């Protein structure tokens, strides 16, 4: 199928005077590349970039722009090595027939993992171009300089452009990986806050999000599911479908495979109302513990015990001068992308094209091929950005559902989830039970630390596949499950602790909600638990919490972010909760450290607690990230702002609610998030380290900010919170028990 707007009739409506517009979906420069199933050979320079006759370049990147600005930053790295202006360089959308396989866009790894490949490929191309220029200009390479893709001979007027040297022809050059790359001292573009390339179109309304894509001859589809998922593995059993209930919508058709149910129609509104109107009797047998029984079930479950890290002997916990222990609970939280996920599938008997917002086009191609029983080479997946996803929201599920609907309808189908599908059937960030013990000697040195974490794994089978008959157990859990354990970096890793033990208690995934990675997976829960214990030790020692952390800090990178956050906040030396007030509204300030898998995060929070209403207001958050070389410090700053605000939202409001039957958080009313009026002031601090390897910056200050908020609460009230979000009800309960 060719992607273009369908200018003709949609749903019988006649469009008058519609101005014909350019095809938005043409991929110039990529067309010739799109004929074969990928991934293209990563050992060829041509896989990574092309130089065009007009002296511009296209870089083929395997990472998805998710609104974090990585496409701009990766182009900066390529432009730097090629000596091109940013205006001379572009990239294309991800496509399994076109772009290289650099793995999924996960773990804030675009720059860390993808950057070196892009940089190296660009350096290799530059070396080849200089060789060609040397021959053309009859001058040694050592005498050549490049600016804006124009190669000149020093001390002469001779020059030639990249475009004239290769102009759309292939390099046919193996990617050796050994070309010289620029040292940081020569950087002109890398390290600069270059404005993002996607923002102008997003502002004017010309940017094409997945939700805007249309193809000729397509139907609109909607899935029909109970509003709110049941236990993972339990599915949603259909007892009866009354097709007569939508008889008044003649354009709509019911499609079904086992318990997978949907409707399609030519007109989108017909599909929407048919899905809402269709009478279905579901098996409502209780399969879940409900919110109220969740933590009890987790505590009682038979869990697989794994030692994550151990050193020394944590028996020191019982002999130390000061020891604290804390048990905390953290809820399921939802990705809740602002625009529900959307996909278009065109399934033919022997091939399929699926357009969707996956973070991993090759991974998704594999699961879709399996769903269809086709070899992967027969399935093509193209990426269009949707709204921010913050991890594994329903983009795979919607792609699978569109694929099933297209196969059943034997037509291309565009499926957009409704709000309740996205909220109610998300792969939630899993709930957590954490137990921490920490001890210090009389001089304020940490001597021992132990963390036990209970959580279940990420769910490997999407709802659509499961409902259509794939048993959850057969598909197992996700490949990246190793990430889903107690994080040694956030749990004590920022301190020098001679005796330490981290234990993971892996719960079986069945009988819980569907889980997956949600931005800074579980780190907010880890830091909320762990950093409150550290803070409490400082309190017991009558020490300033910043000073106590400094005294025990593991290395200069951690100290850098700790001090940067403290400095930005103008931290003044004080013992926590040393200034408790009897006022109705009290204020507090807290500090915290934490990260995800890489980089370093430190934060300070100023909050206000209304002791009468239980309302907590986060007034100001200061967050510092050290991500090594920040290729685009502007992007890192934006990412810090987003992380701080999202953390405030997750600490104050976000909690997936569910009964014993199913999830009841199905929209923005039942799953509230932070709004304008309560948004804190934010101060982002980028700790720039030009000579260090770049590492991730998309999720590395959330844990620290969560901890800082919890510690600020103690500073304000003298009370430790053992569960978030800090809702008025929970806060009042904690204050009344104090």
């Amino acid at each position, binding site marked *: 199928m060719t992607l273009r*707007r369908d*200018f003709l009739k*949609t*749903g*019988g*409506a*006649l*469009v*008058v*005077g*519609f101005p014909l517009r350019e095809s938005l979906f043409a991929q110039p420069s990529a067309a010739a590349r799109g004929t074969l199933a990928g991934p293209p050979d990563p050992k060829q320079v041509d896989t990574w970039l092309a130089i065009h006759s007009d002296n511009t370049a296209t870089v083929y990147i395997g990472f998805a722009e998710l*609104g*974090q*600005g990585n496409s701009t930053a990766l182009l900066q790295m390529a432009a730097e090595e090629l000596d091109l202006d940013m205006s001379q360089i572009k990239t294309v959308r991800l496509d399994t027939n076109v772009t290289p396989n650099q793995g999924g866009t996960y773990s804030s790894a675009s720059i860390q993992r993808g950057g070196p490949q892009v940089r190296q490929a660009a350096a290799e191309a530059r070396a080849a171009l200089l060789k060609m220029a040397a021959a053309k200009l009859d001058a040694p390479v050592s005498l050549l300089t490049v600016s804006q893709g124009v190669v000149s001979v020093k001390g002469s007027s001779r020059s030639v452009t990249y475009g004239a040297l290769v102009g759309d022809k292939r390099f046919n050059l193996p990617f050796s990986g050994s070309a010289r790359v620029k040292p940081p001292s020569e950087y002109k573009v890398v390290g600069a806050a270059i*404005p*993002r390339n996607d*923002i*102008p179109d*997003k*502002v*004017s*309304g*010309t*940017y*094409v*999000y997945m*939700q*805007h894509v*249309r193809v000729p001859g397509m139907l609109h589809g909607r899935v029909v599911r109970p509003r709110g998922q049941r236990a993972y593995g339990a599915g949603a059993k259909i007892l009866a479908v009354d097709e007569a209930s939508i008889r008044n919508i003649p354009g709509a058709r019911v499609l079904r495979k086992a318990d997978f149910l949907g409707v399609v129609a030519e007109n*989108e*509104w017909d599909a*929407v109302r048919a899905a809402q109107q269709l009478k279905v009797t579901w098996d409502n047998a209780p399969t879940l513990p409900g919110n109220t029984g969740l933590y009890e079930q987790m505590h009682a479950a038979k869990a697989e015990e794994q030692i994550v890290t151990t050193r020394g002997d944590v028996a020191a916990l019982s002999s130390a001068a000061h020891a604290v222990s804390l048990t905390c609970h953290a809820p399921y939280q939802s990705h*809740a*992308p*602002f*625009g*529900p996920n959307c996909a278009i599938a065109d399934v033919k008997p022997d091939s399929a094209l699926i357009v969707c917002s996956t973070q991993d086009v090759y991974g998704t191609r594999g699961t879709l091929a399996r769903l269809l029983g086709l070899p992967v080479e027969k399935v093509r997946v193209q990426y269009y*950005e*949707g*709204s*921010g996803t*913050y991890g594994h929201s329903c983009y795979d599920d919607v792609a699978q559902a569109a694929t099933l609907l297209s196969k059943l309808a034997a037509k291309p189908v565009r499926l957009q989830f409704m*709000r309740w599908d996205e909220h109610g059937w998300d792969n939630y960030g899993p709930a957590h039970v954490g137990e921490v013990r920490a001890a210090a000697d009389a001089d304020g040195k940490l001597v021992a630390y132990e963390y036990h974490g209970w959580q279940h794994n990420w769910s490997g089978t999407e709802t659509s596949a499961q409902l259509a008959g794939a048993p959850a157990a057969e598909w197992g859990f996700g490949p990246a499950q190793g990430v889903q354990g107690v994080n040694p970096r956030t749990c004590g890793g920022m301190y020098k602790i001679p005796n330490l033990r981290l234990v993971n208690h892996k719960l079986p995934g069945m009988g819980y909600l569907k889980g997956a990675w949600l931005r800074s997976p579980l780190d907010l829960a880890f830091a909320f638990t762990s950093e409150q214990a550290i803070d409490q030790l400082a309190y017991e020692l009558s020490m300033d919490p910043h000073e106590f952390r400094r005294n025990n800090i593991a290395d200069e990178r951690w100290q850098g972010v700790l001090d940067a956050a403290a400095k930005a906040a103008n931290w003044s030396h004080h013992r926590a909760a040393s200034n408790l007030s009897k006022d109705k509204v009290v204020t507090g300030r807290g500090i915290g450290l934490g990260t995800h898998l890489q980089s370093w995060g430190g934060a300070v929070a100023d909050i206000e607690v209304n002791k009468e209403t239980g309302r907590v207001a986060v007034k100001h958050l200061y967050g510092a990230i050290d991500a090594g070389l920040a290729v685009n410090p502007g992007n890192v700053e*934006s990412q810090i*702002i*987003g*992380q701080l*605000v*999202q953390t405030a*939202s997750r600490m104050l409001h976000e909690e997936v609610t569910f009964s014993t039957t199913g999830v009841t958080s199905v*929209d*923005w009313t039942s799953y509230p*998030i*932070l*709004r*304008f*009026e309560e*948004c804190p*002031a*934010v101060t982002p601090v980028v700790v720039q380290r030009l000579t260090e390897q770049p590492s991730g910056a998309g999720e590395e200050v959330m844990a620290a900010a969560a901890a800082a908020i919890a510690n600020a609460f103690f500073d304000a009230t003298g009370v430790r919170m053992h569960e978030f979000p800090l809702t008025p009800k929970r806060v009042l309960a904690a204050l009344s028990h104090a």
Partner: protein
Amino acid sequence: MASELKIKVNEKTWRIAAAPDTPLLYILTNELQLQGPRFGCGLAQCGSCSVLMNGVEIRSCVTPVSEVQGKSVITLEGLPVWYAGQRRHGPAPELHPVQQAMIDVQALQCGYCYNGMIIKSAELLSKTPEPTEDQIRSHMNGHLCRCGTYPRIIQAVQRASQRMAEVRK
């Protein structure tokens, strides 16, 4: 059943055939193929689908198309022209000042909610050219941003307000 309806969108009149209860959003997206208003919740909870109707922000996901007959609907695409009309002089700029300010402060992350953010802040600036920060927060409170870019949006609205004041002088 489909009826023939006449609606005015971005200063242009369109004749469309649609069931009168069809939410305006689906007409704007599918029949008029506009990309500004977009589906977010279908429940008037988030502001993703916002448009101006006679200068007032409405949620097109819950507004039947029949209700906008005889009214003037402005979408993100029509905002620069609408702004020029408000000023009653000069040609339409390429972007409304608040759009330009969003670029200037690099406010967006995913940008999906920015249709509503821009529409709602343009509405504010048309009525309150120099809003205080509290006024901005309160006016925008019904619009959600999942990426957490509220601080930069506030900054952009303030910047646009200053620019517009300079132009008026």
